[in-house]
């Protein structure tokens, strides 16, 4: 029951289902991104390469191989042919797969196999053309219609008909042999948004989505209009100040609870807590090891100390057993009980203790 094509029968509980059998049980919409431009949108599995699902197709080496081969321009309809193998057309009435015609297979193989051999690769074994019907026979088969779009959505079609990766469009490099990938490169011409002060173009959906994409992060500024007693979350929601850092998530991205415990920038070693939208330096009379450990954890995995910090910090009260423990440590200043961080060592991360682990060094 692992194969998706078996599941309906498995649900019945007692049918033996062989996913490799040709009787595909149902058509499914095509989701393989490489093949979203086909004149049909339903497929079924197993396909003609033995893959049992679109997911398997998507991670197959053929799904990497064919787009690379398309770049060579060896055959105009290579991608169409590849997709008839990867996501074969499914007839919604008969639920049968519709194969490519033999002539299409032959043309692709004749024109592109030699290109593959140049780089030491072989034509996919189980795409033998003799298994496909001749066109005009009593079995329907697929041939490209005139004007079929050879490039997948993640490619840009040069004026010359070649496909180049969509990200090569307007990247300042001439990738199409006719240079058409560098024509009309303004953001608006491509229905994109131009980052102010730069030539970077981004999709409109990336504006104010909480992830900075423009230089100077301008796509994430002025995104929310919060009232005076509110703060803006990373995803630009507004949350009341009193709820900020109260130990509960109020922003849907939980950013109201980020960085609530930190070391103050100025000295980089004074413990501060951000509470109800204000920073407080921690000053505590009863401090104990548990609070030390909690604070270290809340700060992440520990912060290296700042060698050479100047100033009058000569006092250093260290826990009597400090030398037996490693990790982030605290010292309490003698006169105004300000908590200072002194980190002797980062945590025990990244160390290998097993003996004799560096033979390779000798080998060099």
């Amino acid at each position, binding site marked *: 029951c692992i194969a998706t094509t078996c599941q309906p029968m498995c649900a019945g509980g007692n049918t033996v289902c062989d996913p490799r059998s040709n009787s595909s049980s149902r058509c499914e919409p095509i989701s393989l991104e490489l093949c979203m431009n086909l004149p049909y949108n339903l497929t079924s599995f197993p396909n003609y390469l033995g893959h049992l699902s679109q997911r398997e197709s998507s991670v197959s080496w053929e799904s990497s191989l064919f787009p*690379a081969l398309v770049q060579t321009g060896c055959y105009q309809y290579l991608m169409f042919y590849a997709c008839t193998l990867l996501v074969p057309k499914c007839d919604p009435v008969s639920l049968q797969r519709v194969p490519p015609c033999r002539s299409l297979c032959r043309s692709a193989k004749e024109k592109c196999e030699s290109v593959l051999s140049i780089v030491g690769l072989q034509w996919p074994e189980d795409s033998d053309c003799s298994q496909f019907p001749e066109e005009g026979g009593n079995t329907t088969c697929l041939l490209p219609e005139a004007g079929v779009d050879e490039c997948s959505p993640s490619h840009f079609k040069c004026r010359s008909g070649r496909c180049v990766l969509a990200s090569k469009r307007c990247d300042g490099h001439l990738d199409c042999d006719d240079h058409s990938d560098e024509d009309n490169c303004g953001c608006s011409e491509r229905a994109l948004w131009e980052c102010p002060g730069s030539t970077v173009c981004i999709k409109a959906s990336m504006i104010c989505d909480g*992830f900075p994409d423009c230089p100077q992060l301008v796509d994430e500024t002025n995104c929310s209009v919060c009232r005076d007693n509110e703060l803006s979350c990373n995803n630009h929601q507004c949350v009341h100040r009193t709820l900020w850092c109260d130990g509960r998530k109020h922003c849907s991205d939980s950013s109201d609870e980020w960085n609530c415990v930190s070391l103050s920038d100025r000295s980089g070693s004074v413990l501060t807590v951000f509470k109800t939208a204000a920073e407080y330096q921690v000053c505590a009379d009863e401090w104990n090891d548990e609070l030390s450990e909690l604070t270290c954890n809340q700060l992440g995995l520990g912060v290296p100390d700042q060698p050479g910090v100047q100033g009058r910090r000569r006092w250093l009260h260290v826990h009597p057993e400090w030398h037996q423990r490693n990790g982030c440590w605290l010292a309490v200043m003698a006169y105004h009980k300000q908590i200072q961080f002194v980190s002797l060592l980062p945590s025990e991360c*990244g160390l290998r203790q097993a003996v004799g682990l560096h033979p390779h060094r000798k080998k060099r």
Partner: protein
Amino acid sequence: ILGGRVSRRGAWPWQCSLQSGQSGHVCGCVLIARKWALTVAHCFEGRESADLWKVVLGINNLDHPGGHSQSRGVRSIIVHPRYNRAVVDYDISIVELDFEIEETAFVRPVCLPQPGQLPLPDSYCYITGWGHMGNRMPFKLQEGEVRIISLSQCQSYFDMKTITPRMLCAGYEAGTVDSCMGDSGGPLVCEESSGRWTLFGLTSWGSVCFSKVLGPGVYSNVTHFTPWIQQQIYIHTYLTD
């Protein structure tokens, strides 16, 4: 790992194996704290539920875990919200173990990089895993040394995909050491002068590692994600819903 060699026991105490049901080993993972590990998001495609998975640590031979191994269930899986399956971008996930591990010589977390800390191009680092060796799948953990490659140089190898700042490239242009299927989620670590190892990459994708046409391996750039990782650990550790 292509072109690697068998690792010694305890050589990579942060290396773990992400296993699922009948399939056993599916992906690599990396221990970063007593209850937290990192792997890549694409390992969970089709199997998003935490109770399908378990994490095994402290092993060298997948078939013979041995007395140093520790096995934990998975309490939660945190996939990066911006993970893009089509272009394998933001390929990272955090795994919360159901119980803390016991730190031993064979089970120990790796260091996370400091903000902005990146391995220099041309520096040498290590990749490890139980992934394909080119002719078979290994039982014993493999290791291989790879050279860090700049993003611009890396992009020149991949016409079909865009190398983004969330990625890190490593491997030899014409060499043989590379990661392969089954290594995904495993570590790319570099040794610092202090003798500590820092995690800079998680095996993510690359050229078709079976073919003779090789290109560098592409790894999730852990430095880019360190703030997100720490935020998520903080939220899942200290916040009540």
